[in-house]
């Protein structure tokens, strides 16, 4: 956190001065470790074993926050007797289909709920029976899985029923002992015990523990399950929805939260509404019926979606044409960025827009990225400088090796300079869901324009060219509401007008809350979770009441979705009766006199719903949730310790080894890696399967304070470039001795994909780990560099292969295997020969 979010870290320093204990669990010793009370190095890729052991520690001691757990989680829910755990099936859950490498979730349901949650009826689990739930976990990003799970499962509040979630959890995690942690993670039992005791002691009525993570948890073939394990732990300890608790994702880009809320992601529409999948006949009602829960706030999905369709297609969207639902293109599976790149290599994807992104350096398997770029018909790059993804035809490493040559690359490249943040109006959504407006200060220089300008004027040009077309496929383009007012020297579309469309309008003008949205076409809203960001027609995101002039929650600075709530699920900060769990942790509570929820934050609950409210049997949407159900996006209002629907790789987290690992999975010797991970077995994506000693070391990629991701915004700046002027690797003194690496000298790192070179920093901050009788060496590789800019070096991401988390299709960038050798890498075709020789020795065939 200190490393990549230094200004956010001020609050950790502040907390530490007030007595907080800071524990840093990370393979490398970073700037965060330097200020932590305890740094715990662990083997990259082993976090589920570590977190699962914390869960087991809590469960075996029954140290959970029982009142919270019984009332607010699904611990008491009884599961169907069809569910079989990985512990009983040698590493797979019930429902596994080895032919497709995917799960059917029907056996994961609550008892007696199967008719209500038939996963086969879900939109993308269509008649073809393709099992991967592409991006399903993301579709829950607004706060809950949109799928259908029973609102009212049978419960055993004594938590003793053998098939209640609590007991199932207990059995599932029973083997996650401190001894397993030592064998898998390399953390000794004494240190583990200290952490476990600290976390438990610091949770309960009076205290809360927070977890903070970044892509160190997401970039794995089991990434979503890492976060799930932390969720289980935090729910058991009562640390969700309460001040000082939670699981904080520290995201790395100014509006990366915004770019999932208003997604440029293949599987989502704004506000985490799923993109529809291909069917022979599916209308809006069928789509909503298949995808929305009937209970909880997703019960209003139809209103959210109709309002979106109205904001896109305006008057053309009418009841008699299903609100233009048919204008939406349909998915047929994985259309993520990595499959797109393979489509480029294979020739099916011919055009590419790169808007502020540099995949030639920043995405996994750089060579494949560049081969894809080189096989396009046309490419548009919008950036501040000529990044590697724009100049690949001049200086890609593959030109040096002879795999590509400038004269034979047919890609037509347009480089369009971009406006910077001070040259345009707009909002960023930060990592806490806070929308903050930034005002335009100056005009952009030369041909530089905002991306808002680019998309607006591109759309205008396209619509002009299509004007008069009678082809039905052009209807969605011609029907589009695309008439924003323009301003300034360059006819910039008004960002304020776009935000107003996102916020939405009703018959009486600007909307103030998503609860106003209707499915009858009377409301328009471009992103339902952002509804209210211009409440009363005022740009709430531009509010800048000084922090020191308001409460510590600072509700009048910017605007947080949803409804300006700063802590989600904050109903859980009060006990079931609505009273604060303790004075010290008072946050939101039920005022019995006023008969309303009140407190320091906007209550994340219906403001007047009495804690004693119990829903009638036929209730829908929020009415189906009781006054003690804080998790209002969930169909049952509970925090899910066990996930009956919504995840592609199982209802519970299980430790699997990374796709490339130096260790046989001690839990399931016959299930090395996540059995349903997204794989791309093809000759240009060779993966080192477990075994042999050709790639004996673990490497992990990461960032440094001084640079920003793929470097486009930092390697080009003199003041930043000089601070970390070139690519380096970090190795322990022991590994340096083992491999003859010299501090300050050069090393070559080899994987089945390629080899790169880096200067060597030998440092005690990287420590070999002892896993029982094995020693594991880890190599640290910052990934900021490429060939362009002021600070240069080989790109660490070139080393990675492409295997993905099956829920979110994110690559495993944090743990893979390699060899390291002293000296610089070979140049030209000899580089290919070196890599090939390694592959041959490892027995990696042409089929990957």
């Amino acid at each position, binding site marked *: 956190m200190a490393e990549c*979010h230094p200004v956010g870290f001020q609050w950790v320093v502040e907390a530490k001065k007030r007595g907080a204990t800071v524990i840093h669990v990370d393979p490398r010793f970073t700037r965060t470790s330097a200020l932590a009370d305890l740094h715990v190095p662990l083997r990259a890729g082993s976090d589920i074993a570590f977190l699962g052991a914390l869960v087991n520690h809590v469960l075996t001691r029954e140290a959970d926050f029982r009142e919270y757990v019984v009332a607010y989680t699904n611990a008491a829910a009884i599961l169907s007797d069809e569910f079989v755990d990985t512990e009983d099936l040698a590493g797979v859950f019930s429902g596994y289909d080895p032919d497709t490498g995917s799960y059917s979730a029907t056996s994961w349901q609550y008892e007696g709920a199967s008719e209500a949650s038939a996963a086969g009826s879900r939109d993308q689990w269509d008649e073809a029976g393709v099992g991967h739930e592409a991006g399903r976990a993301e579709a829950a990003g607004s706060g809950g899985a949109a799928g259908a799970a029973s609102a009212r499962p049978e419960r055993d509040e004594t938590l003793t029923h053998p098939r209640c979630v609590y007991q199932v959890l207990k059995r599932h995690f029973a083997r996650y002992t401190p001894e397993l942690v030592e064998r898998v993670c390399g953390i000794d039992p004494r240190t583990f015990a200290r952490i476990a005791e600290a976390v438990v002691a610091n949770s309960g009525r009076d205290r809360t523990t927070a977890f903070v993570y970044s892509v160190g948890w997401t970039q794995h073939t089991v990434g979503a399950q890492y976060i799930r394990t932390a969720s289980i732990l935090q729910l058991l300890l009562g640390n969700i929805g309460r001040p000082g608790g939670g699981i904080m994702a*520290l995201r790395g*880009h*100014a509006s*990366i939260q915004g770019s999932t809320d208003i997604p*440029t*992601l293949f599987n989502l529409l704004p506000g985490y509404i799923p993109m529809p999948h291909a069917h*022979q006949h599916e209308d809006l009602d069928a789509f909503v019926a298949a995808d929305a829960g009937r209970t909880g706030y997703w019960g209003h999905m139809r209103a959210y979606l109709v309002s979106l369709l109205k904001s896109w297609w305006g008057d053309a969207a009418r009841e008699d044409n299903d609100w233009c639902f048919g*204008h939406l293109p*349909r998915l*047929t599976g994985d*259309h*993520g*960025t990595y499959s*797109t790149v393979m*489509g*480029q290599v294979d020739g*099916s994807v*011919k055009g*590419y827009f790169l*808007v*502020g*992104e540099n995949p030639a350096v920043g*995405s*996994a398997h750089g060579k494949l990225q560049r081969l894809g770029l080189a096989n396009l018909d046309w490419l548009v790059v919008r950036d*501040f*400088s*000529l990044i590697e993804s724009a100049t690949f035809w001049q200086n890609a490493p593959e030109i040096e090796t002879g795999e590509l040559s*400038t004269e034979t*690359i*047919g890609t*037509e490249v347009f480089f369009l*300079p971009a406006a910077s*943040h001070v040259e345009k109006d707009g909002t*960023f959504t*930060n990592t806490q869901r*806070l*929308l903050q407006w930034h005002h335009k*200060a100056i005009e952009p220089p030369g041909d530089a324009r905002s991306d*808002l300008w680019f*998309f607006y004027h591109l759309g205008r*040009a*396209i619509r002009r060219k299509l004007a008069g077309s009678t082809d039905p*496929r052009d209807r*969605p383009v011609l029907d*589009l509401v695309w008439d924003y007012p323009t301003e300034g020297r360059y006819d910039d579309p008004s960002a304020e007008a776009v*935000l107003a469309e996102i916020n939405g309008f009703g018959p009486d003008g600007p909307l103030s809350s998503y609860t106003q949205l209707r499915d009858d076409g009377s409301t328009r809203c*471009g992103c339902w979770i952002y509804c209210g960001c211009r409440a009363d027609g005022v740009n709430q995101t531009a509010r*800048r009441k000084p*922090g020191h002039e308001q409460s510590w929650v600072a509700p009048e*600075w*910017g605007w947080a979705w949803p409804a300006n709530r700063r802590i989600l699920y904050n109903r859980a900060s009060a006990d079931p009766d609505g009273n604060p769990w303790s004075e010290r942790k008072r946050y939101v509570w039920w005022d019995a006199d006023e008969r309303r929820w009140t407190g320091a934050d906007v209550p994340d609950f219906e403001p007047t719903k009495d804690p004693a409210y119990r829903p009638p049997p036929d209730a829908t949407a929020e009415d189906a949730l009781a006054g003690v159900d804080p998790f209002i996006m969930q169909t049952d209002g509970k925090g899910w310790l066990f996930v009956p629907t919504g995840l592609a790789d199982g209802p519970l987290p299980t430790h699997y080894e990374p796709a490339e690992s130096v260790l046989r999975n001690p839990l399931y010797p016959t299930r090395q890696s996540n059995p349903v991970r997204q794989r791309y077995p093809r000759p240009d994506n060779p993966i080192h399967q477990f075994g042999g000693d050709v790639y004996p070391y673990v490497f992990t990629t990461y960032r440094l304070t*001084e640079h*920003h*991701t793929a470097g486009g*915004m930092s390697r080009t*700046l003199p*003041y*930043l470039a000089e601070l970390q002027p070139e690519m380096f690797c970090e190795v322990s003194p022991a590994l340096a001795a083992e491999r003859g690496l010299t501090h300050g000298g050069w090393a070559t790192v080899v994987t089945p994909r390629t080899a790169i070179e880096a200067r060597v920093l030998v440092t005690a901050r990287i420590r070999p780990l002892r896993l029982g009788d094995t020693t594991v060496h880890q190599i640290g590789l910052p990934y900021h560099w490429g060939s362009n800019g002021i600070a240069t070096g080989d790109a660490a991401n070139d080393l990675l292969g492409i295997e993905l988390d099956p829920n979110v*299709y994110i690559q495993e960038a944090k743990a893979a295997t390699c060899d390291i050798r002293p000296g610089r890498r070979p140049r030209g075709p000899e580089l290919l020969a070196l890599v090939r020789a390694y592959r041959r020795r490892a027995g990696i065939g042409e089929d990957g």
Partner: protein
Amino acid sequence: MTFLGWPVLRQLAGADRLGRGAAARSRRTDGLTARTETADAVVRSVCPYCAVGCGQRVYVKDGAVTQIEGDPDSPVSRGRLCPKGSASKQLVTNPDRVTTVRYRRPYGTEWEELDLDTAMDMIADRVLATRRETWQDTDSDGRVLNRTLGFAHLGGATLDNEENYLAKKLYTALGAIQVENQARI
């Protein structure tokens, strides 16, 4: 410098007998002002690097950014910035920033200049041509697709929400579904 301003005289006449303080001040020193004081405008902004969302104040003079620093009013950042945020003026004013359109024709070996309007028109043509060539009405089972897989988008995550909104809206209307961003990575 006038005779009376000569440091030695000031030194002899004043309390600073060693000429190490008040008497040593040059006229430039006396005229120093912080450039933030003379800015034409102070504009409220947000740091474009990570997702902490630190407040920035952008100082503008004669249409140019002269300083960017932390906004002390922000309850998120309290006026502080990391090295990247502190360097963000250089992101804007860096002389190496490319500010004109560059064009590389197929099989070309050099960048060429291209007018922005022409570039936009050419890009629109490319989109429509590719869309036409690669359009899919249905799949082989007769399922409705209404889409093209012929072109794709990969965005950074430093785009504004409004920008992403227009991008998603336009691409979806065009039937392009391979629209992705850094959040997938």
